[in-house]
């Protein structure tokens, strides 16, 4: 996201803050978030796709709400205004096609109004059908996550994404020779999907609060967290949303500090480190191990400052709007072991995977008729969780290797902790400190070596870099 866009977000947030009264607050935040969904979407070479993908985001959010309605039914009158607002904004954006000047609300011209109308009618029909029959359909709780998983694969698996691009290009009568997986970049889909899956799962387990359409949509597409998280939980989010946002001077100060810190992390530190960070080109050009380490360190720090900078900006913007968004990073590179690293790196993602994959899998393995030995259960749970997190970044070999690297690391740390539990408990404090320091250095280097797989799309390049790092190439 460009600096100009972040500054515009800050300005819009300040405007929202000034207009931040209890009455209409949710609608205002939803409307701004809907506009942000369209405005943040990158331009795409497939005709009108940069209009349809944000529209699909809104449809998905509305579908998620329909599927999480309580069995007792819903007060449709309460949600009518929100539905009209959603459709109205989409129509207004569609109408910008006829303006003589282009607005920064959409990366390119929207489609003809007839198509916009048709798309919105289809979206409305899907949502209406889900409201009417969704709760009765027995397979929906299973098929909805599978549908979202399918979309994940379509977006994150390059050969499949290319096929989707081919199909869309053919339907649009566009050249198919230039079809590319990058043709389909759906802003924020991953985070939106995580939020929807969380609500679907929690509805099944009966833990989800009842929320209005406006509240649900605002939660799913809340504009400060749209591009890079954090992944909040609905029950926590609506508490802030329903509370009147009376900002104190302390809130302003905390938000300002957080935003400035985030801007500095992202645009001063991360962007500078990006100049010298490991990439697919320089991986083959470096001629000495020492310099290769320097590039790997630069990448490790760049990815941290970039991501945590965005998170700081999101949390600061949220604070200005009266939200206490969850933290995503807590000095992860200073942690003494890999388990703690993952408890402090992209925390909301790891919490999500822990809650919806790791814990259920572990429970299932434990409650099996013939339970596996504990180390095997731990191995399976950790490898598969980290593999999934890797695949979430992209269904390519480099992310698979990165996931396996961390899965194995977590498993070995678990076994090491188990082995040392009794043996190191009585260590003197200085020794304990030295051990923690050594652990932090070791953990940082383990993570940094893992970034080699993450940074380079070709495993052969990763292998070359690893050999070079240890003077073997």
């Amino acid at each position, binding site marked *: 996201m460009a600096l100009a866009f972040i500054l515009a977000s800050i300005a819009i947030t300040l405007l929202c803050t000034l207009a931040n009264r209890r009455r209409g607050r949710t609608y205002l935040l939803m409307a701004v978030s809907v506009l942000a969904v369209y405005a943040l979407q990158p331009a795409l070479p497939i005709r009108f796709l940069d209009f349809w993908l944000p529209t699909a985001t809104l449809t998905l959010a509305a579908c998620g709400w329909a599927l999480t309605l309580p069995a007792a039914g819903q007060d449709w009158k309460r949600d009518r205004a929100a539905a009209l607002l959603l459709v109205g904004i989409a129509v207004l954006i569609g109408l910008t096609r006829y303006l003589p000047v282009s607005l920064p609300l959409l990366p390119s011209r929207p489609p003809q109004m007839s198509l916009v109308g048709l798309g919105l009618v289809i979206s409305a029909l899907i949502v209406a059908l889900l409201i009417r029959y969704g709760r009765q359909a027995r397979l929906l709780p299973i098929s909805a996550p599978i549908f979202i998983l399918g979309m994940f694969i379509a977006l994150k698996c390059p050969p499949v994404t290319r096929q989707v691009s081919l199909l869309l290009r053919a339907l649009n009568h566009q050249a198919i020779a230039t079809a590319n997986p990058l043709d389909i970049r759906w802003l924020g889909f991953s985070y939106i999907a995580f939020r929807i899956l969380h609500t679907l799962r929690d509805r099944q387990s009966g833990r989800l609060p009842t929320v209005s359409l406006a509240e649900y949509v605002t939660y799913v597409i809340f504009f400060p967290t749209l591009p890079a998280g954090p992944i909040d939980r609905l029950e926590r989010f609506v508490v802030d949303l329903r509370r009147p946002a009376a900002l104190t001077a*302390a*809130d302003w*100060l905390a938000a300002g500090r957080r935003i400035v810190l985030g801007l500095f992390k992202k645009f001063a530190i991360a962007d500078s480190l990006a*100049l*010298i960070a490991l990439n697919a080109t320089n991986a083959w*050009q*470096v001629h000495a191990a020492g310099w290769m380490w320097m590039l790997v360190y630069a990448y490790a720090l760049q990815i941290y400052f970039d991501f945590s900078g965005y998170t700081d900006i999101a949390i600061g913007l949220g604070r200005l709007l009266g939200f206490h968004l969850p933290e995503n990073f807590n000095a992860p590179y200073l942690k003494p072991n890999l388990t703690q690293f993952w408890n402090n790196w992209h925390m909301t993602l790891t919490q999500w995977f822990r809650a919806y994959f790791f814990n259920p899998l572990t429970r299932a393995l434990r409650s099996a008729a013939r339970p596996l030995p504990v180390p095997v259960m731990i191995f399976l749970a950790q490898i598969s969780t980290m593999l999934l997190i890797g695949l979430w970044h992209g269904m390519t070999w480099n992310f698979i290797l990165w996931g396996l690297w961390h899965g194995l690391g977590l498993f070995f740390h678990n076994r090491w902790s188990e082995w040392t539990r009794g043996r190191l408990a009585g260590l003197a404090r200085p020794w304990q400190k030295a051990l923690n320091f050594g652990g932090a250095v070791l953990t940082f280097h383990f993570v940094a070596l893992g970034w080699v797989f993450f940074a380079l799309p070709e495993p052969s390049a990763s292998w070359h870099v690893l050999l070079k790092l240890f003077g073997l190439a």
Partner: protein
Amino acid sequence: MLPSTEYSRNAEVRLDSRFLRNVLLKGIGLFLICNWLFAIWNPGGLGKISLYNHLFPGRERFPFGENPAQSYNLSLFDLDAMFASHVIAGGARPADEYRLILIGDSSVWGILLRPDETLAGQLNAAGLTRCGKRVHAYNLGYPTISLMKDLLILDEAMRYQPDMVIWLVTLEAFPADKQLTTPLIANNPARVNALIRKFDLPFAGLSQPTLWERTIIGQRRALADLFRLQMYGVLWAATGVDQIYPTDYPRAQVDFETDASFHGWNPPLLPADALAFSVLEAGARAVGDTPLLLVNEPMLISEGENSDIRYNFFYPRWAYDHYRQRMAEQAQRHGWDYLDLWDLLPDKSNYTNSAIHLTPAAEALLARQIASVLTQKTCP
């Protein structure tokens, strides 16, 4: 981050809107004062602070590049920073070094050539000795064609006490109207004006930057470039790459339109004041007693369409012939040591993407030619 209540307790201030307003006003005030002080102080020597030659090896040629992300190099206009990043600024001169500096345009800098393939690199590879010392050639070429730009670099380079200067020129560097328009010149008005005054050159001085342009905000691009140059030192040190080496590129043009004009001038002769020989004279004065060898650099002599009108993309035949004649006259009149190598390498196979950019093999031939001239010269 401290919770707000803790913050207010620790700092013993009342965290209210008045406090916030004061923070904001003080912040704006400090920002304005810093900008104003920066503009008044005008820290021109910031570029001299460099990590090159300390943390990173000095660059073999000046920083220049339009695609920093791939070339690990960038164009900037801070002459101090350019020199500070160059290997020539790397400490005291060894006692056994015969310091030879090469001044000129992109052909000297070495577009599409690796550092060891440039003229300086080839001269160094030849292992020459002169006056009992080992010849070390320094590449101080810079890829814009203008004598004034060369003079600017030469004047600065004299600080590094060369034993000899070789200045490669071509007609395109001479037109008087382009002397002050290259970016390096336009962005160094104080130094350029000083040169104009010092050598009494026939140019109106450049206007000085305004107060606003001298503030941190006004200088943000220059400051960012300075910082990026230091950062790219890591990749220069790690890879030795300082430009992009494409495997395929458009070759030098050999077919031309029937256009016989040169910078708006038409046959048969260039106007008397068209060429900036005064800058060449200034250069000869700038080097003082240091030997100066002027070289008219080799160029492609095309045999393609309309090559009876033009030698190459740059020059119609009449203009270039007249230039060579005048150059020889000037050299004779001023007693300059002048070597006219214009037709040393006429064939298109010797050139890469321009009529003056030599291939590595052709550059080696040019180096051999210059080396033979060097070895024939007597020592002082």
